[in-house]
Each structure stands twice: as structure tokens, then as C-alpha cells.
């Protein structure tokens, strides 16, 4: 927005000063993330820009840390590229191991959290839901309780019932932590839901299951999917509970990064971080697409 012609110098200074301040804050938000991306292509094992990198010399850049992701931990990383090399990498490389675990745990936890969370949200938005406030507060609480407390509680209890250091244990733990996001997003979607549509479907002869799958599901699906994405990223990013509940067998990407930062810090972490930033960008784009789709569908329904 351009400044109108009548403003004085003080207003102009304020206008630009304010924007400058906001620009600084936005730089503060973005810059740290952007800084590590070029560094992940550093040919040297350091965390600073070498002189060669600043002069844009091609030999100062390399993909060695990306190669390290797929080779670190392999039995024979220098063997010629072949089917057995791929098998070796797939079953022995540490980062591949944690990536597989992250996806197994994340997807399983998301499925549980999304199914149960959506059902609960459907119940919570029913007109006769008893103790709505109290139950809602209870269902949201895994998001509020500090992770260290959840992790400590789960550590003791899961050890007692034999779930610690197992996949079902960590999956259930992540499902519990992910449900609030599903409940919140689906409840928000259902709050704008026009229940006349269900009556219309019923009056036109649809059975309740048919109404649910043909009318309700398409309308709430953007909310369900964005809740599922939240639950997935929560599990994918979670490390405190993983620290307490898992061993090497269930080690995930954040756990491996945590170990890397604490013990043997190598620029491979920056390469992994860059890949995770790309995943974040993809998730952000998906969420934006869902939001637009949701707004379009809301535009069709009155009220």
C-alpha cells in the first residue's frame, strides 16, 4: 500500500521503520533454516562457510554428506553399485534404519489417532453431548502436558506392562500425543457443518450410513486430512518420548539427529535437516491446498 501524499516525514519514518522491524523479525524466523541448506553441500567437514564456498568454487561444494546418509553403517559402502549394495544400504545404513522406523511409527500412530480422533470429534459436536467441556479438555490434554512428564509416566507404566522398547508401545504413545490435533481440526471443520444437509439426505431417502459416507465424509475430509498431517508431523518430529521408550531397534530420525548433535556431530545432520525442511515445505503446500479446498466447499454451503 502506497503512502498517501499528505503524510509528514514522521509518518514516513514510522511507516518504513515499522516495515524494517517486521522484515528483521521475518528474517530471524527464516534465516537459521536457510543458512543450513547451503552448508549441507560443504565439501569440508565443518559447520562454517569455507572461503571456496563464498567464492562459489564448484569444488568447495559436494554431495558427500547426502551420500553419507545412505552409506553410513553399511557393511561394504565402497562395493560397486549393484543390487546387493542397495540391499546392504537398505538393511544396514543407520539413517535408512531410522527413516524406516519414523515412517512405520508415524503412519501407524496417525492411523490410530485419526480414526479415534475423528469419531470423538463427531461425538463432541453432537447436540446432546454430555460433559462436552470436560471431555474436550481431557482429550486436548496430551498437547498441553509437557512431553517430559508424558514421557516419564509412559516410561514407568509401559515398562510395567511390557510395552517399552517395542513398536506397539511407541506407536500407542505417539497416537495419544497426536490425537488432540485431529480432535481440534475435525471439531473446527464440523462446527461450520450445516446439519440441514443431513436432514436433506435423510428426507431424500438415504440411510444413515449412506448419508455419512456421501455427505458428511466429503465435507469433513479436509479437516480430517489436515488433522492427520498434524498427527503425523507430531510423531515424525517427536523425540522426548522416543528417548524414554525406545532402544536402537525403534530409533527414529529425530532420535538419530539428537544422538548426532550430542555425540558425533557431523555435517550429515545438515543434509538430513535439509531433507526435513523439504518435507516441511511439502506439508505446508498440502495444508494450504486443503485450506483452500475447505473454503471452497464452505462457500457452497449456506451459513
Amino acid at each position, binding site marked *: 500500500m502506497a503512502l498517501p501524499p499528505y503524510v509528514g516525514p514522521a509518518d514516513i519514518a514510522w511507516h518504513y521503520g515499522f516495515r524494517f522491524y517486521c522484515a528483521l523479525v521475518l528474517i530471524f524466523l527464516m534465516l537459521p533454516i536457510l543458512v543450513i541448506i547451503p552448508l549441507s553441500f560443504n565439501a569440508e567437514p565443518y559447520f562454517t562457510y569455507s572461503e571456496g564456498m563464498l567464492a562459489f568454487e564448484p569444488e568447495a561444494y559436494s554431495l558427500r554428506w547426502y551420500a553419507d546418509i545412505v552409506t553410513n553403517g553399511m557393511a561394504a559402502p565402497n562395493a560397486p553399485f549393484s543390487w546387493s549394495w542397495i540391499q546392504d544400504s537398505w538393511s544396514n545404513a543407520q539413517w535408512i534404519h531410522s527413516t524406516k522406523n519414523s515412517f512405520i511409527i508415524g503412519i501407524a500412530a496417525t492411523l490410530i489417532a485419526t480414526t479415534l480422533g475423528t469419531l470423538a470429534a463427531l*461425538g463432541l459436536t453432537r447436540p446432546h*453431548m454430555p460433559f462436552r467441556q470436560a471431555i474436550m479438555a*481431557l*482429550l486436548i490434554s496430551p498437547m*498441553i*502436558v509437557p512431553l517430559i512428564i508424558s514421557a516419564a509416566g509412559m516410561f*514407568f507404566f509401559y515398562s510395567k506392562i511390557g510395552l517399552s522398547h517395542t513398536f506397539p508401545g511407541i506407536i500407542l504413545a505417539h497416537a495419544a500425543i497426536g490425537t488432540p490435533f485431529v480432535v481440534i481440526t475435525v471439531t473446527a471443520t464440523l462446527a461450520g457443518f450445516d446439519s440441514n444437509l443431513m436432514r436433506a439426505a435423510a428426507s431424500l431417502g438415504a440411510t444413515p450410513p449412506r448419508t455419512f459416507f456421501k455427505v458428511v465424509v466429503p465435507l469433513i475430509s479436509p479437516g480430517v486430512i489436515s488433522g492427520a498431517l498434524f498427527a503425523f508431523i507430531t510423531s515424525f518430529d517427536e523425540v522426548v518420548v522416543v528417548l524414554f521408550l525406545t532402544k536402537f531397534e525403534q530409533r527414529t530420525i529425530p532420535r538419530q539427529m539428537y544422538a548426532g548433535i550430542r555425540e558425533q556431530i557431523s555435517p550429515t545432520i545438515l543434509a538430513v535437516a535439509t531433507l526435513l525442511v523439504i518435507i516441511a515445505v511439502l506439508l505446508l503446500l498440502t495444508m494450504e491446498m486443503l485450506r483452500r479446498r475447505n473454503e471452497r466447499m464452505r462457500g457452497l454451503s449456506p451459513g
Partner: protein
Amino acid sequence: MAEAVITAAPTEVSDAVNLKARLRSATARSRRNAFLLTAPLLIMLLITFIVPILDMLFRSIDDPIVGQAVPRAAIALEDWDSGAGLPSEEAYAALVADLAALRTGGSDGKALIGRFATRLNFEQPGVRSVITKTARKAPKLKEGPYKDALIKIHKKWGQPEIWAAIQRLSAPYTVVHFLASLDLHYDVEGSIVGQPEMRQVYITIWLRTLYISGLVTLLCILLGYPVAYLLATLPQRTSNLLIILVLLPFWTSLLVRTTSWIVVLGRNGVLLETLAWLGLVGDVDRPQLIYNMTGTIVAMTHILLPFMILPIYSVMRGISPTYMRAARSLGANPARAFYKVYLPQTVPGVGAGSILVFILAMGYYITPALVGGQNGTLISNFIAFHMQKSLNWGFAAALGAILLAGVLGLYWLYDRVVGVSNMKMG
């Protein structure tokens, strides 16, 4: 309600009582169905989340070891007054009998001696060896007087302190962990006193946790409010683009963001290298920006800032610009119009964001653990320490219980101010 009436069988309109009864049963059915939909999630959360936390909280007061290890001595000490000299010969005899029974009781008994010694040692540093030594010799003590025999084994048995500790700990429940969380303990007479100055640790940690959380919240307001205002007043198309700069960090892994701060703030990191290149800092005497409180505060502010910007932004979007125009046209200067008209309308957003950021900051663990060094760690790091390293689980549980109480209090406040149902994501 209307659905229920539609799906119910056709009703005799004349029969009013019947109609009421049907309505009531339809409502009851609807309530039950709604509740049944939430039941699976409630049950899962109960088993995987609520019960584990309650179980942990119970550990903070649960203290059965001493009562289990030396039951006879516990009974013998019941009526002993710790202010009036040493206990009677019976108590000594009971203790010897207890320890001898444990010592000859196989591996379970020996393990219990170890736990008993550790438990007492936590109460009175240095008595672990007294217990183990005494337990080793106890089976050989066949006859009295046991009092002299025990004092001969170790002179601490001739002082009332160790007996007072056994007497106090023989109760199955205890508040010592909570006292220790606040730097308090029992003295010999059994009254609660503060730790000496040099052994006060936890008060400092609690204050530091509150201080860092408060400071991070304040920084988030100062950095976030103007950005939220800019986003809310720019044309939709531009603000949609700029908000990506807020949302991308929000979606990026916590560890990635912490790693990037290690890279930026490190001793040979990007920031200090740039400043050195500009000649603003020397090569030798560089300020320490990470692995201390500064590092924790910067990284936490960065990570929590989106949680402040987004609620304020969503409130600001709903404020009509006509109020400000009206204030200006009535003669208020921009500062006054902002202070009197705009600011009060944004308070709900600032309140929501502040409580959220404060709650999240209080329980922060990973970032302080990685960049906090010595003086930038929070209470969560001490909970983890006592869980994993010192294995003092009761104490970890007590610290956790206090933290949880604080957070739930704020959560309750949040629910009152914002309403949990109005919480939005993204």
C-alpha cells in the same frame, strides 16, 4: 434432536404424555450415542496417557522400601521420641534381626538391602556403606547386647540421626520428595527446615524456569505483535505470501531448528564469523552465544514465535479498520488511537498466545538439553536427569508433579480466557 424425531416411529399427536416420554428417550439415546463416539478415544487415552501419568504421580509419594526392608525395626521405633536420645535395645535387636533375615534371604533379600541403603543414603548422604557393612555382619550377631555390637560396627548407630531417618521413612507414604523439590528437608527432630544456602539447587532452577519462560513470552510478544499487525493489515495476497515465512518454521522439525541455531551461534558459527569479518568482534575474545542461557532463550524464542504470531493474527484479522478511522477522525493522534482503540481489541489474541507460549516454554526439554549448557537448562532437564542418570524416580516424579500442577493451572486459565474449543491449528 430433530433427527431423532424424524427417525422415530410416527407419533400419536393426541397422546402428549407419550410424546414427552418419547422425546426424553430420544434425547437420552442421542446423548448415549454421542458419548459412545468419544468412548474409544477416551479409553485409549486413559490407558496410554492418563493412567501412566497418575502412576508416575503416585511414585512421588510412594515410599515402601524402608517399611518392607526392616518391618520389625519400624514397629520397634514407632513410639521412640527422636529428641530423647538413642532408641531402646529392642530396636537394635529388631534391626539386626531384619538385616540378618534380608542377608540370608537369597538374591531378593540382598537386592532389598541395596535399595534400602540407597533410599537412606538419599536422605542422609554417606550412610549407604553403614547399612551394607552392618548387613554383612548382622547374621553373625547371635546374641545381645545388640546396641553395643552395632555401635562397634559403625559409630553412626550411636547417633540418633540415622534412627530418625529410619523411623520417618518406615511410613509407606512420604512428602520428602516434594520437600526436596523446594530445597526443604526434615531435620533430626522431624521439623521441616530449609537447606543451607550452598545446597539450595532447585529453588534456583524453578526461578530460572519461570524467568526464561517469562522472558521468552515477552520477547515473542515484542517480536510477534508487529508482524501479526503487518500480516493483518496488508492486502490478502501479500499477507498470504508473507505468512508462509511464519508457517514454514512452524512446520520444520524442532531438531532442525535447534541444529541451525548451533550452526549460526556457534563459536565459529555463521553469525560470529560474519561479525568478525566486519571487524565487530575479535578473533579471540568472542562472546559465548550458545551452550548457555543466551542460546536457550534465542532458540526457544525462535521456535515458539509462530505460536504467538498466529493467534494474534487471527484476532487482528477480525478487527474492522473502521474503528481506527473513527478514532482518528474524532481527533485522536495515531499513538492514542492505537493505545485506546486497537490494542484493547487485540488483548484476547495476545493473552491466548502468551499462555500458550508460556505453557510450552515451561516444559521445554530438547532445546535446553542441546544448547543450554550449564546455566540454560530448565526443570525438565532435571526431571530427565533424575529419571535416567541418578535413578531417583520418586524425586523426578515430585518435580514432575509440581511442573504439571503449574501447567494445568495455566491450562485452566487458558480454557477460561480462550476456551479450549476455540483453539485453532495452523
